[in-house]
């Protein structure tokens, strides 16, 4: 798995091309792109700022990569997570998974996103149009989403 933590934007199409170029064993590619929304809990959002702990993200993603490869027969995968200040409509995160068959690609992409949401050391701060800011609180649903993979049998191909 390729992991990149960066301030700048990414080109999902170029990443997919790089992952699939010259290969004829890939039957399914799933991408997930997370975007900054212009409102949160009914309040307008002017920007979000992402703080992170990069060395730990790399260590954690190495662990999750091993788990994903054990669960699904992946031909390739990629995670890009941005940090810094982003405006509504901007991309935050990209997950790409490739496999011979669609079930593995879909499940692995969902697993990686559930992982990123509940385990990867990133913290979002929202800034409103008046300049006031607040740290976003974690969602219990994100922890529950990751928990659903625990004890689940390894998927077939």
């Amino acid at each position: 798995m390729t992991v990149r933590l960066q301030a700048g934007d990414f080109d999902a199409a170029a990443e997919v091309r790089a992952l699939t170029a010259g290969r004829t064993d890939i039957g399914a590619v799933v991408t997930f792109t997370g975007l900054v929304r212009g409102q949160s809990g009914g309040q307008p959002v002017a920007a979000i700022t992402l703080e992170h702990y990069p060395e730990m993200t790399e260590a954690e993603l190495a662990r999750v990569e091993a788990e994903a490869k054990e669960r699904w027969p992946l031909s390739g995968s990629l995670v890009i997570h941005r940090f810094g200040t982003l405006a509504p409509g901007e991309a935050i995160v990209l997950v790409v998974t490739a496999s011979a068959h669609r079930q593995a690609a879909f499940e692995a992409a969902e697993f990686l996103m559930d992982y990123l949401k509940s385990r990867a050391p990133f913290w979002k701060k929202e800034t409103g149009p008046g300049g006031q800011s607040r740290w976003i609180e974690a969602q219990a649903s994100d922890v529950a989403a990751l928990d659903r993979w625990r004890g689940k049998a390894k998927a077939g191909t």
Partner: protein
Amino acid sequence: MANPDRNVRLLYFAWVRERMGRAEEEVVLPSSVATVADLVAWLKTRGPEYAEAFRRPEVIRAAIDKAHVKSSAIIAGAREIAFFPPVTGG
């Protein structure tokens, strides 16, 4: 002379960092500190910013050497311990 194993680097993120007024520091752990919970109890005695940052330890998460741990985790041998709110990336 302090046991060199008792020197650890502490990292703070998000609102823990803001309340602490710093992103990291080096400390020498007293021998009474065995677990992450012990470390939090000790840190709270070190000043008002520590007391404020760790006022509700149940909402703070910890990592030892870049891996998530529970507050009952033993910290012997740790080189880097991070404290932060529940993560909100993705």
